[in-house]
């Protein structure tokens, strides 16, 4: 069977990142755009943990810097999702729509 090296995890992370970028650039609904941002952050986490495994092979079993960084990224994603959803609720109270196309009050 094929041995799953670090490169396979990186390619999977890149594919998830591309799906998240397509979701951010393409959808009209704001909630789905926020969920695509979470997909992007998960792809980055996968890269970090894959590299931490690679680093463990070189420097011994306690070189877990990538995993600690991934935990911090998860914490940061939680904070950003909370504030983003708060902004969404405040905006929805004003305009009664969740489409990004109609957020054009500052347009010239």
């Amino acid at each position: 069977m094929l041995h799953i090296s670090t490169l396979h995890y990186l390619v999977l992370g890149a594919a998830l990142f591309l799906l998240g970028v397509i979701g951010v650039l393409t959808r009209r609904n704001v909630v789905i755009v926020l969920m695509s941002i979470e997909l992007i952050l998960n792809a980055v986490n996968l890269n970090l943990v894959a590299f931490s495994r690679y680093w463990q092979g070189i420097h011994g079993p306690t070189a877990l810097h990538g995993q600690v960084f991934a935990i911090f990224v998860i914490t940061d994603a939680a904070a950003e999702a909370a504030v983003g959803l708060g902004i969404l609720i405040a905006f929805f109270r004003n305009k009664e729509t969740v489409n990004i196309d109609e957020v054009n009050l500052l347009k010239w």
Partner: protein
Amino acid sequence: MIIGGILVITRKNAVHSAMALITTLLAQAGIYLMLYAPFVAGVQIILYAGGIMVLFLFVIMLISIERNMKERQFNKQWLVGIAAAAALGGLFIAVYTKGKSLFPEGRLNFDEAQNTQGVAALLYDQHQGMYMFSFEIASLLLLVAIIGAVVMAKKRI
């Protein structure tokens, strides 16, 4: 996980997208277990799939989505968006096919029982830990996020 990701960005109903994202996050926790990182997998399930996605579902149910489901789902500039993502994908393919020899394949067999101790040592230990300052800053960030979310969602400030 890829199928979950595709379902997230293409579903019309936002609740379907949230369910697909939950399955993607659970699949990602499984991949963390394959990478011998059980602590990060546990943190992912508890925080991400059990906290952030529940928050998303609350907000989806709070704002009325049925009227939105009958409208157009994709942006006016979806072609340009997909073209930009295809350019980014081409960049990834170029990088990963050129640099394929950089990552040697080794079979490692560390037991997972030491993983949580290792992460805690990096965070908290006196001689080995270097992430204590980032830990405090992360807790400050969470405090600021709580205050921000409460202020943004109030009716009258």
